[in-house]
């Protein structure tokens, strides 16, 4: 009897609470689900900068909540459900592996808007957004191809998903263009964030002759490992990682989510929010190239900046033919540019890369 009474009271409170939210509470509540800690110095750090920008832009009119270190999978669904029950109006889920959980939870809360980063599944209340990191990878590949002396470039990859494969291809195409002898050694870390493993991977690559390390994992650990080894070039990933400039970090890809987060929050406040697919890059400033340091020879720096400018104006696309796939079959004819559909689902290496993409 007591238990049923308790449950009934709880249900009533919950009903009242949701009722209150439906009436239009004063503050817009925005939730963020993070895959790593906000202090990772990379991916999650930049998403959190975006969150802080939302707070600064709207002040008292907005309330943000976030949860760090959320594993990709069932736990993510629980976290999103809690945020939705807690009255969030808009929830950003900031890792590829949150794709299915986001769709599942969004189906249960039709009035809550969801924004999933780097995925491809949408619904009426689920938008997707991503950045064209491959534009930055092209610049890195160019610098890497010019700067390597051993002609071995190490690549710490995370998971075999299109976004990561695109990055490897873009970097390789442009490294190979300026240095035909270049070889890529790729390690799949199967994690976004594990500093010890990332450092071990960097060391393994360096011991096997790599003198440039590209990373697609989130922490600064590979930078530290490269610095310790000495004479190894690195690039900041997701965040500037300027602590390691001017060397080993000679440049970086910076994810700049703040303008997007502010615009989407504004849309929710105005009631103009719609499910969209956003994929922006250097032209809109969603992808930024961090300062190229003086450790890079002046003419290489000038070429790299020229590439950035060409991509900004739309004059150059990193995936421009002629390009072949790894198996030797034709992909893009002379002058042909890859379409977004192929890029979004990219699951093949370009010609010249060795090894197989894990299934």
């Amino acid at each position, binding site marked *: 009897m007591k238990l049923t009474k308790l449950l009934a009271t709880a249900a009533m409170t919950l009903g009242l609470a949701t009722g209150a939210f439906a009436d239009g509470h004063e503050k817009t509540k925005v939730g963020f689900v993070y895959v790593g800690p906000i202090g990772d*110095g990379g991916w999650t750090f930049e998403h959190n900068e975006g969150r802080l920008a939302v707070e600064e832009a709207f002040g008292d009119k907005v309330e943000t909540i976030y949860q760090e270190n959320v594993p990709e999978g069932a736990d993510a669904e629980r976290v999103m459900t809690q945020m939705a029950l807690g009255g969030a109006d808009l929830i950003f889920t900031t890792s590829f592996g949150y794709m299915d959980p986001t769709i599942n939870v969004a189906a249960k809360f039709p009035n809550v808007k969801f924004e999933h980063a780097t995925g491809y599944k949408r619904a009426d209340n689920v938008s997707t957004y991503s950045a064209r990191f491959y534009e930055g990878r092209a610049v890195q590949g160019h610098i890497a191809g010019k700067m390597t002396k051993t002609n071995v470039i190490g690549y710490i990859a995370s998971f075999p998903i299109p976004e990561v494969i695109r990055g490897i291809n873009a970097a390789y195409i442009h490294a190979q263009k300026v240095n035909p002898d270049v070889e890529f050694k790729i390690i799949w870390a199967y994690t976004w964030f594990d500093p010890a493993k990332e450092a071990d991977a960097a060391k393994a690559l360096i011991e096997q002759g790599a003198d440039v390390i590209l990373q697609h994992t989130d922490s*600064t650990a590979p930078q530290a490992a490269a610095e310790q080894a000495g004479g190894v070039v690195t690039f900041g990933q997701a965040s500037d990682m300027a602590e390691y400039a001017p060397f080993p970090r000679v440049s970086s890809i910076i994810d700049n989510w703040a303008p997007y987060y502010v615009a989407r929050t504004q849309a929710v406040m105005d009631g103009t929010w719609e499910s969209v697919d956003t994929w922006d890059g250097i032209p809109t400033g969603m992808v930024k190239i961090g300062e190229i340091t003086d450790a890079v020879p002046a003419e290489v720096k000038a070429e790299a900046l020229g590439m950035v400018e060409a991509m900004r104006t739309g004059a150059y696309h990193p995936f421009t033919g002629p390009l072949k796939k790894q198996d030797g079959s034709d992909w893009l004819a002379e002058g042909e540019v890859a379409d977004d559909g192929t890029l979004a689902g990219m699951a093949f290496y370009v010609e010249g890369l060795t090894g197989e993409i894990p299934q």
Partner: protein
Amino acid sequence: MDLSSINAASLIASLMVASTPILLAALGEMVVEKAGVLNLGVEGMMIAGAVCGFVIAVETGSPLAGFAFAAFGGAVLSLLFGVLTQYLLSNQVATGLGLTLFGLGLSALLGQGYVGQKAPPIARLDIPVLSDLPFVGPVLFSHDVMLYLSLAMVAGVAWWLKNARGGLILRSVGENHDAAHALGYKVVRIRLMAIMFGGACAGLGGAYLSLVRVPTWVEGMTAGAGWIALAIVVFASWKAGRVLLGAYLFGGITVLQLNLQAAGAKLPVVVLDSSPFVITIVVLVVMSSARNRAALAAPASLGRPFHASG
């Protein structure tokens, strides 16, 4: 596949470095469990040690001061667990889990402002002739002092638990605390000391991560190493020698699989990536099953609360 690109000497040298954090943490936890206490807070104490060691090493410029303070920090944090579980008789499992959460949060707080800073380099052994020997030099004679200390601690703990009077008392407390109490041993005090030893070891392991293996401070950088240390203690059937074997197997295969990937091994990456877990568990379980059951057994009083009145 181009296996010739893997240099055996530097591979072994890096696997020793990669294994040391887990080895230190697992060795400490083994002593704690031998005293009959289950402290699931290893991850929290490790990360606390990682941040304490890093902050002090950066401020003083001395990595050794960092390690000393990391051990102190880990011990202080474990004392919190000790007081709660030994005097206030709280549930060990819940308190240990709480300690992990607390350690992760506390370290994130203490580490603010130290993200991305550089650790002062730690001196490496450099003996003329010996350190320059091919293969033997990089494997045996060119490490940092903490790595040698960790190996000495394994030998010391193994000997102490087996032969020293103190070790026998500690084990008696872990096997049957009522009997040990009846003999006049201070069960709670002995357990507190074991808990603090475990905390200090976990702190050293964490500091080895932030000062030698990575070396930088990143929030949440232990990323589950503490849980692996806990698992190794169980699979090593509470024997110091096997803790060493387990930690080196795990760290070794982790490093080896990364090297195999870089060398372009024609093995599925998923298999390579899971191999450290699978092989470590299989080896240790097979070893344990070959012995009689007494050798397998956990300390009989493991995880049971003790009160003199009971």
